[in-house]
C-alpha cells in the first residue's frame, strides 16, 4: 500500500468529483457543494482540486482519502463512518499526527541501517535496526490514540486540531521488546526514573532545538511492555507512521510513541524539550501548560459508537449498534449501550477476537427501533472496575477526552 503513487490518489479523488461520483458525493461537504449535475468531468476535476479540498500530503498520498478527514498536512483522522468491524485498523485508514514533518523518505532506503543510540544503561551503545532484529521479537496489538482525540467536544474551543473520534486506531506492532534490549546492555543505569525517546525529524537551523525537538519522557516502568518496532500490521512501518523504527509504549497516548526514534535514553529528568515541558500537560482552563501540570501519558477507559449511522436518519426496524471500547492500561471487560442518552442501559456483546489488554474490543447490540429521536451512547468498564467517565476532564489544551456523554450520536428513526 505504501507504494501507491500520489498520482493514483489524485485520480481517485477526481473520480469522486466526476459525473458518476457527484450523486454519491452528496453530503461530503465541499465536494458536493461544488459539484453540478451534468458538469463535464474535466471541469469537476479542476474544481475538486481547488484549495478548499485539502489534499493528502505526499508522505501519506497512499492513504484512502475517502475514509479520512484531512485537517492539515500533518493532522489527518479517520471518518467515524469509515471504521470497520475487523478490530485492526487498516494502514490506509489510520490517522496521522506529526508535530514536525517527517524526515526525508530516503531514511527508508536501507531500513536495517537506521541507528538508535541506547543510553542510560550499564553498557550504552548504538544499534542498527538490523542488529535489533537479532535481539528479540514480539507483536503487540494496541490502541494508538492521539492525546487530543475528542478535542472538538470541548466547549471552550481549545486551539489545535478539533479531532472527532478518528484520531485513533487499533494496530499491530512488531519489534524487539525494550526490556530485551536493556537486558542485553546490562540493565537500566541507577537513578533513571524516565525513559526518553528522541525523534529523528530534520530540524531547521536558527531555532533552539528544544523548541522543535520531538522528544518525550515516560516513566521507566513503561519499558516493561514497550517495543522498538519496525513493522505495523505486518508491513514495514511507513514514513507516515514512524518508519524505519518507532518507540511503542502501549497504553500511552500517541505522542509518547516516538517516530523515527534515533535515541532511547534512561534519564534522571524528563527531557527539557518544549513538547514535554509546556505541551501535552493537563492545565486548568484559562492557564498555560507548564511542567507543574500532569503530563499526558496513560489513556483512560473509553468507548464510542460508530454506527449503524452517524448523526443521520435510519429506517424503523432492526439495527445493530456497533462500536469500539478499550481500557487504556487494562483490558476492557464490559460495554453498555443506551439509546436514550444514558437514562437506561443494556449490555453490548464483544464481537471478534480478543487481541490483548492494549487492543480495543469491538462491540455490538441488536435493537429494534420505532420512529422517533434517539441519542446513542456507550459506556465501557475495564478489568479493574474503572468506568468510562460521563463528563470530560476539562483542561486548557483539550487532551484525553473520554466522556461517554460527549461521544454520543443523535439518530432519527423515520416513520
Amino acid at each position, binding site marked *: 500500500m505504501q507504494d501507491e503513487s500520489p498520482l493514483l490518489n489524485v485520480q481517485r479523488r477526481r473520480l469522486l468529483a466526476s459525473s458518476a461520483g457527484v450523486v454519491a458525493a452528496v453530503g461530503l461537504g465541499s465536494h458536493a457543494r461544488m459539484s453540478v449535475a451534468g458538469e463535464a468531468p474535466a471541469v469537476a476535476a479542476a474544481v475538486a482540486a481547488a484549495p478548499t479540498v*485539502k489534499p493528502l500530503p505526499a508522505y501519506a498520498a497512499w492513504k484512502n482519502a475517502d475514509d479520512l478527514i484531512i485537517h492539515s498536512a500533518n493532522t489527518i483522522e479517520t471518518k467515524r463512518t469509515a471504521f470497520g468491524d475487523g478490530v485492526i485498523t487498516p494502514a490506509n485508514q489510520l490517522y496521522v499526527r506529526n508535530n514536525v514533518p517527517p524526515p526525508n523518505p530516503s531514511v527508508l532506503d536501507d531500513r536495517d541501517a537506521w541507528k538508535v543510540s541506547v543510553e542510560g544503561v550499564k553498557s550504552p551503545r548504538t544499534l542498527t535496526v538490523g542488529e535489533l532484529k537479532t535481539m528479540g521479537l514480539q507483536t503487540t496489538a494496541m490502541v494508538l490514540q492521539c492525546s487530543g482525540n475528542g478535542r472538538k467536544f470541548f466547549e471552550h474551543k481549545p486551539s489545535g486540531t478539533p479531532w472527532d473520534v478518528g484520531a485513533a486506531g487499533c494496530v499491530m506492532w512488531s519489534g524487539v521488546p525494550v526490556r530485551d534490549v536493556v537486558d542485553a546492555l546490562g540493565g537500566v543505569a541507577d537513578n533513571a526514573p524516565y525513559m526518553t525517546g528522541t525523534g529523528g525529524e530534520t530540524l*531547521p537551523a536558527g*531555532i533552539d532545538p528544544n523548541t522543535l525537538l520531538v522528544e518525550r519522557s515516560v516513566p521507566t516502568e513503561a519499558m516493561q511492555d514497550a517495543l522498538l518496532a519496525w513493522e505495523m500490521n505486518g508491513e514495514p512501518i511507513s514514513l507516515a507512521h514512524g518508519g524505519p523504527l518507532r518507540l511503542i509504549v502501549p497504553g500511552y497516548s500517541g505522542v509518547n510513541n516516538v517516530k523515527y526514534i534515533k535515541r532511547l535514553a534512561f534519564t534522571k529528568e524528563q527531557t527539557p524539550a518544549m513538547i514535554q515541558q509546556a505541551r501535552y500537560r493537563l492545565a486548568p482552563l484559562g492557564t*498555560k501548560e507548564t511542567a507543574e501540570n500532569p503530563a499526558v501519558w496513560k489513556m483512560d477507559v473509553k468507548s464510542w459508537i460508530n454506527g449503524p449511522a452517524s448523526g443521520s436518519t435510519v429506517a424503523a426496524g432492526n439495527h445493530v449498534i456497533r462500536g469500539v471500547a478499550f481500557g487504556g492500561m487494562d483490558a476492557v471487560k464490559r460495554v453498555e449501550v443506551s439509546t436514550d442518552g444514558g437514562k437506561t442501559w443494556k449490555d453490548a456483546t464483544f464481537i471478534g477476537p480478543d487481541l490483548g489488554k492494549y487492543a480495543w474490543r469491538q462491540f455490538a447490540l441488536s435493537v429494534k427501533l420505532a420512529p422517533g429521536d434517539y441519542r446513542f451512547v456507550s459506556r465501557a468498564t475495564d478489568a479493574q472496575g474503572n468506568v468510562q467517565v460521563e463528563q470530560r476532564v476539562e483542561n486548557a489544551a483539550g487532551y484525553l477526552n473520554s466522556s461517554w456523554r460527549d461521544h454520543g450520536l443523535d439518530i432519527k428513526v423515520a416513520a
Partner: protein
Amino acid sequence: MKPSWAIAAAGCLLAWQAHATGPAADLEAGRTLFNNTATPACAICHTLKDAGAEGAIGPSLDALKPDAARVRTVLKTGLGVMPAYEALTAEQIETLANYVARVAEGH
C-alpha cells in the same frame, strides 16, 4: 469654482496617498516582523509567499489562511511545537496578525 475644485482635487489626492502609504507601511512592518523581528522568525517554520518564506515545519499560512484573531491567539499562547511569542509587544502582535491575515494567498 475653479480654485475650490482644485483644492478638492488636491485634497482627494492627498487622501488617496495617505490611504496608499498607510497599509503599505503596515505590510512592510508585518513582513519585517515575520522574517526578522519575531524570534524565532516565523519564516523559519512557515511558508508565506508574500514574505518570501518557505519554512516547512508548521502549516503553510497560504494554505491555512488564518484570520487575524487566530494568528493573535497562537502568537500569545503558542500551539504544538510553536512557542508563545512573549517578547513581542501587543502592537507588534496586532501588526503581525493583521499582516498574515491580509496577505495569506487567496484572501
